[in-house]
């Protein structure tokens, strides 16, 4: 754990700031929470690897002074799986968008959960494809307006917590950018957790989601997360079951993939000779 003051410049490639995201883009708040969590854990920059996919959210890797890769749309988790299995000493973190993680990368997502490989997936969920101009994602939700859903999205959306839980992730949590301190602490717990951890952070895209859905500017969109989310199991749910729950939904101990491969495969066959 770190007892020094947090200095953001220690963790970023400051030459690329101000970053490319639009004013009020929630992805920047997620980045801040991630860096504070890394600082709280006292991790050395050399020991952290951040692997992202493609999307506005996934541009995060370029800004961070770690071992970083901006990979292919949807393919961050399998790439990260290669990095982690090749060098289990690295703390591997995968921040990516809702589209990247649950649409094109959905299959990789469930299999990473199932393997319980020690990677922290941070889903920066703005409920839209920000980068490509506001098309709907598997997380947009029925009725939401998007450039490819001018009359409202007909699809139902994933509950990422249920998906991750069902697929076998051993740490599953949700928070929002409004709850920035909670996000920081949740990411911290997720990184500390041994096994596959999923943190969904409800983020906002004022440019695409906000405009199309008349959700207001960035502060109003943040406000919405304050008003429409509650801590897990809150009494308020009885009156309004549509409230989105925040909290740690799963936190359990299970064999981790890299350790299992080492102990049950490598060590065993090497002993046999």
């Amino acid at each position: 754990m770190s007892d020094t003051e947090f200095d953001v410049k220690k963790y970023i490639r400051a030459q690329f700031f101000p970053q490319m995201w639009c004013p009020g883009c929630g992805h920047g708040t997620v980045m801040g929470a991630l860096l504070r969590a890394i600082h709280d854990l006292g991790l050395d920059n050399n020991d952290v690897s951040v692997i992202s996919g493609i999307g506005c959210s996934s541009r995060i890797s370029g800004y961070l002074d770690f071992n970083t890769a901006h990979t292919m749309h949807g393919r961050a988790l399998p790439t990260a799986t290669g990095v982690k299995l090749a060098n289990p000493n690295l703390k591997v973190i995968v921040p990516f968008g809702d589209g990247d993680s649950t649409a094109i990368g959905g299959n990789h997502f469930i299999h990473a959960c199932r393997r319980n490989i020690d990677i922290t997936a941070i889903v920066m969920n703005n409920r839209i494809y920000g980068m490509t101009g506001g098309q709907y994602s598997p997380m947009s939700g029925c009725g939401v307006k998007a450039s490819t859903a001018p009359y409202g999205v007909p699809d139902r959306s994933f509950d990422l917590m249920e998906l991750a839980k069902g697929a076998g992730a051993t740490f599953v949590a949700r928070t929002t950018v409004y709850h920035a301190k909670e996000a920081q602490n949740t990411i911290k717990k997720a990184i500390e957790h041994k096994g596959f951890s999923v943190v969904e952070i409800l983020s906002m895209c004022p440019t695409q989601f906000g405009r199309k859905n008349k959700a207001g500017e960035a502060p109003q969109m943040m406000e919405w997360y304050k008003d429409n989310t509650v801590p897990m199991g809150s009494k308020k749910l009885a009156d309004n079951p549509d409230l989105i729950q925040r909290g740690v939904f799963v936190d359990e101990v299970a064999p981790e993939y890299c350790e299992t491969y080492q102990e049950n495969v490598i060590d065993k066959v090497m002993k046999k000779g």
Partner: protein
Amino acid sequence: MAKGKSIEHIIDKSWCKGCGICVHFCPKQVLELNSDEKAVAARPEDCIGCKLCELRCPDLAIQIIVKEGE
């Protein structure tokens, strides 16, 4: 300002994009956007050092430095 504390607001104007998040959520209305749409500490003496502005700023543009006991 709370007794025995000195609080400094360091705002990087070249990083701030004027989104207004810090202004909107400051519990003490310390911050404002100036005519260039950049955040400024208009009433620093009211600041309680809660750092909510720093935590939420998407552009990592605000730093609150709280010095105790001065």
